[in-house]
């Protein structure tokens, strides 16, 4: 118990760190500046700003804004990125409530009831409940991370290469099970990601692999390049197809009366609680995350409700539960990343990318060697949530105005912004071209119903998996049964196999499809 407090204390210490700023024009007087809080604030603001833009999801937002954190010190950069992530998510729900165009998959269900509420002139309470629910969920999740962080790290240190490999297999299987659409296609995307991660030089021998003597490929495909291409550019091209303006149905009334009524609060308390619990659990699971959490929370609320017919017609429970769940999941999904070093979903994969760029290899060692980094980030999550609550409600008016920006002006801006961002990573024009190629690949994938998110996950896990596989087999002297004879590894593999079998079973498949279909009718 004492550990938790001292750790959180350390974290808040980092977040509230003041840096003395002595500008020349003040003649030697120094002003203390809370740098990390400012970064968190800027991150949350910018994240919301981009996340609000219709058609731009969380992954795209984080990918797009990655470059602006490169110049910062690692702690600051990660705090800012976390802020961007929450901001983007909150922005996504604002868009779903006000325009009925969910910016990201996670807020699809929020749009169902949120938009109906907005149509009835209750956009204010809907947005407020979303913010309050998210904040509550955020608080719970922060505490949960603090509690689980240390013991999981200890567990992780007991892991050998075989266990790590099995855990990653499990994570990828989870990602498949929880993904939308065809299981086969999701697995194919993961394997394609693994294959793409092989490009570049071999870790052990240094041999150049599949690089065709192109110097820019010698170090492998850039992670930021791939992410921005697949999510930034591809999304833009796809949105252009959809025609942009025609189907945007903005709530025209002024958003008035932000505060929810007493009845709203009473009605939404149990959904917020249930959503938080469900979201926290689903977030920790590898492959889980915000999307599945909000779908599941909505389905659960509808099941337990005494008036299920009200759902889809502006029930406040239908906003409260998924919003709390997706925020809780968004945060608890940091747990596997920070303790085990394994990103459970595509956004966390981006976080790994960012960490690697700053020279940090995520994993249990980070928790021990750079505690200020990990705990600072955890504390910043809570601060970030508080900021979202404080800044977003008064700023709703601005976000609404932003929604009126026509797509014809928005998309060239995003193209340029992404291009400059990618170029600035390595000052390499080739990276920009590569991102463009991945943009077209991503467009093709979307057209053929392949989800690009598992690809990103595979791409990040690829080198880790290969390294651990090689090491495990080296230690076992080439004996493949090592994954089944070591107890911990065997358990993980068994769960993975069981899950895969379950997904293929027709009854469970139906259930799984049902959860996702919910949004379409």
């Amino acid at each position, binding site marked *: 118990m004492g550990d938790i407090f001292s750790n959180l204390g350390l974290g808040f210490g980092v977040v509230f760190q003041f840096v003395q700023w002595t500008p020349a024009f003040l003649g030697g007087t120094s002003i203390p500046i809370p740098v990390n809080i400012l970064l968190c604030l800027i991150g949350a603001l910018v994240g919301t700003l981009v996340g609000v833009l219709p058609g731009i999801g969380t992954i795209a937002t984080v990918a797009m804004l990655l*470059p*602006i954190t*490169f*110049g910062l010190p690692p702690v600051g950069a990660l705090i800012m990125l976390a802020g961007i992530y929450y901001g983007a998510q909150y922005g996504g729900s604002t868009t779903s409530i006000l325009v009925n165009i969910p910016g990201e998959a996670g807020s699809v269900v929020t749009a169902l009831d949120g938009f109906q509420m907005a149509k009835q002139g209750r956009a204010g309470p809907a947005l407020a409940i979303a913010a309050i629910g998210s904040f509550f969920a955020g608080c719970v999740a922060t505490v949960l991370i603090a509690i689980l962080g240390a013991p999981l790290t200890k567990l992780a240190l007991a892991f050998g290469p075989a266990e790590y490999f099995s855990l990653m297999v499990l994570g990828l299987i989870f990602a498949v099970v929880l993904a939308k659409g*065809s299981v*086969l*296609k999701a*697995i*194919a995307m993961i*394997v*394609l990601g*693994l*294959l793409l991660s*092989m490009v570049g030089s*071999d870790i*052990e*021998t240094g041999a150049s*692999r*599949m690089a*065709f003597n192109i110097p820019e490929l010698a170090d492998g495909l850039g992670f930021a390049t791939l992410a921005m291409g697949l999510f930034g*550019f591809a999304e*833009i*091209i796809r949105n*252009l*197809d959809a025609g*942009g*303006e025609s189907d945007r149905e903005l709530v025209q009334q002024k958003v008035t009366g932000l505060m929810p009524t007493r009845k709203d609060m009473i009605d939404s308390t149990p959904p917020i609680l249930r959503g938080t619990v469900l979201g926290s659990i689903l977030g920790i699971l590898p492959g889980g995350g915000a999307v599945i959490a909000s779908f599941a929370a909505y389905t659960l609320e509808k099941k337990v409700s005494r008036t299920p017919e009200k759902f889809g017609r502006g029930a406040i429970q239908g906003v409260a539960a998924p919003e709390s769940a997706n925020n809780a999941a968004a945060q608890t999904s940091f747990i596997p990343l920070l303790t085990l070093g394994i990103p459970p979903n595509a956004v966390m994969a981006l976080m790994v990318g960012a960490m690697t760029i700053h020279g940090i290899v995520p994993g249990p060692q980070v928790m021990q060697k750079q505690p200020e980094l990990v705990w600072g980030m955890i504390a910043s999550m809570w601060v970030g949530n508080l900021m979202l609550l404080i800044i977003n409600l008064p700023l709703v008016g601005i976000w609404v105005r932003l929604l009126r920006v*026509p*797509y*014809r*002006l928005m*998309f*060239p*801006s995003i*193209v*340029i*912004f992404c*291009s*400059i961002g990618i*170029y*600035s990573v390595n*000052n390499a*024009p080739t990276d*920009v*071209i590569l991102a*463009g190629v991945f*943009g*077209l690949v991503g467009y*093709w994938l*979307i*057209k*053929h*119903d392949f989800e690009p998110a598992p690809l990103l996950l595979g791409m990040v896990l690829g080198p880790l998996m*290969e390294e651990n*596989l*090689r090491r495990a087999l*080296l230690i076992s*002297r*080439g*004996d493949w049964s090592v994954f089944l004879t070591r107890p911990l590894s065997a358990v993980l593999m068994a769960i993975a196999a069981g899950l895969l079998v379950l997904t293929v079973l027709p009854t469970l498949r139906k259930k799984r499809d049902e959860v996702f279909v919910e949004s379409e009718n």
Partner: protein
Amino acid sequence: MNATPGQAPVKSIMPKWVRNPQDFVGGIAMMAIAVFALWASSDLQGMRGFSFGAGTAPRMFATLLLGLGAAITVVGVLTEGQHLAKYHWRGPLFVTLSIVSFALTIRSMGMIFSALTSFLIAACGSPETRWVETFIVGVCLTAFCALLFPYALGLPLQLLPTFMIR
């Protein structure tokens, strides 16, 4: 996004026995990528005793992808599914041109020139573009980026064309 299933397959180029062209083509593409990767990694060393060579893992994953691609293709033949989605050429073409133009000019012409040009090229991607408005926004955005990246974020970006600096 996707072609609605109800649409009549008027000009389907797929033979009749392919019941899910989207998956069929997708699976074949995955197999093609896998074969390409197998070829590209064929010059790498394989297993040495029980330790992996540089080429082992890539070939392993490529083989796996080949199998998965084949499975998707088979599923595409056996199950009913969606027709090939319609591709639009305008958006992808101009966005790609804009990206290429940026990559080619950034080194020699500096950010201000290449960002503005690329902005205008990208804007051709939508039939709704109004030029005066687009131009103003393009100039404002370029100015914003010119302040944000080199000054606020401290990234080393060259703003002006090389010939103007020398």
